[in-house]
């Protein structure tokens, strides 16, 4: 492909696909804000994975660096992150995403109910989106993947701290930091539950 994008001729469709999906999610958020006075999310971030990082990821995962790998073997060419204030909002949004037309949940991991051993908490979904554009297999309508990560503000700030430490190999007493991060994750999860409990009591 030379200097061409790893996404090949499908590159132009990705922003359109992402816009369609994020548009529905923002619209749902607005609707909730109007009807209940509370938005579902606090932050909503999305991106098309950069050419360079997609190529690196193919290599890291042992796939050939091809358009097919980028769009079929890996699922996060389109990536969304939804950050909420409360635990229930994560699940409210998950339920909404399931109802989006043309969207099928092909994989999902609930690391909130079942946290990773290091303390990581987040809800991950891989979506198969049916779109009116050709896909890498030549189908019209085509199918594209998108990855969605949903979590609360406290889970998100924990994840960014953990991410920072993972890429700093020179860090002193790593074992201590790892243990402290796990403790912090459990404390923050505890606070998330307390916040949700208070909110439920106020509203009941």
């Amino acid at each position: 492909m030379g200097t061409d994008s790893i996404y090949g001729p499908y590159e132009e469709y990705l922003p359109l696909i992402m816009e369609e999906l994020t548009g529905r999610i923002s619209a749902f958020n607005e609707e909730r804000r109007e009807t209940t006075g509370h938005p579902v999310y606090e932050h909503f971030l999305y991106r098309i994975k950069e050419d360079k990082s997609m190529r690196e990821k193919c290599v890291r995962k042992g796939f050939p660096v091809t358009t097919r790998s980028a769009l079929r073997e890996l699922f996060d060419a389109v990536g969304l992150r939804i950050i909420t204030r409360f635990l229930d909002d994560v699940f409210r949004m998950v339920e909404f995403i399931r109802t989006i037309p043309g969207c099928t949940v092909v994989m999902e991991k609930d690391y909130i109910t079942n946290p990773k051993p290091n303390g990581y908490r987040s809800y991950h979904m891989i979506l198969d989106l049916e779109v009116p554009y050709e896909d890498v297999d030549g189908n019209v309508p085509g199918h594209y993947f998108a990855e969605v990560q949903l979590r609360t503000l406290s889970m998100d700030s924990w994840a960014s701290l953990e991410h920072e430490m993972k890429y700093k190999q020179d860090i002193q007493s790593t074992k201590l930091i790892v243990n402290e991060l796990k403790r912090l994750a459990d404390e923050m999860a505890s606070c998330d539950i307390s916040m949700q409990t208070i909110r439920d009591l106020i509203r009941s």
Partner: protein
Amino acid sequence: MRILVAEDEAELSRALKAVLDHQGYETDVVGDGLSAVEKAAENSYDCMVFDIMMPVMDGLTAVREIRSTGNLTPVIMLTAKTEVDDRVGGLDAGADDYMTKPFAMKELLARIRSMTRRSTAFNPSRLTMGTLTLDIDEQELSAVHSIRLSGKEFQLMEYFMRNPGRAMKTEDLFTRIWKDDPEADTEIVWLYISYLRKKLSAVMAEVTIEGERGGSFTLR
């Protein structure tokens, strides 16, 4: 197990050391109350046996001094006096038990066993109930997953785990956990029960706290 003996009668203190050593205890013997206080500050003992009548500093004062440093090691007082007031005085000073001289060595050994058993059995570093564990030092609640509890949540959970299956009234829980908080209202009990229920479910515990707002609650 390490034991501190404070006894000024040479013959008795020699006998005590011989018997205790023989039982496998590591025994330190001193002859007055002041040395006992110093020893107690220096080392960590599992049990202490003090005579009341001793030179320099008597046994009662020694116990009071030791308790004032926050040391909760079980103390057995030995007393020649048989007056009720003396026994009361010893217990009030912070002793856990007393024996009147002359006593049977066998009984003293049994009381030491009882005291040391109590301190380990009643102060475990973790409480368990089925798959649920409450780590006392870490304030960590765990079953399939783990979570950290805040101060009052932890105290409440600890109380439930020490009284499994027992119904406890909102008022009693409030008095026990929030007695030092002048701002608190009994309504706080329900809030904390709600926290704990959600946290028990978050760690996937097989037990829960049953009961209705304002009523009695049972962990089962």
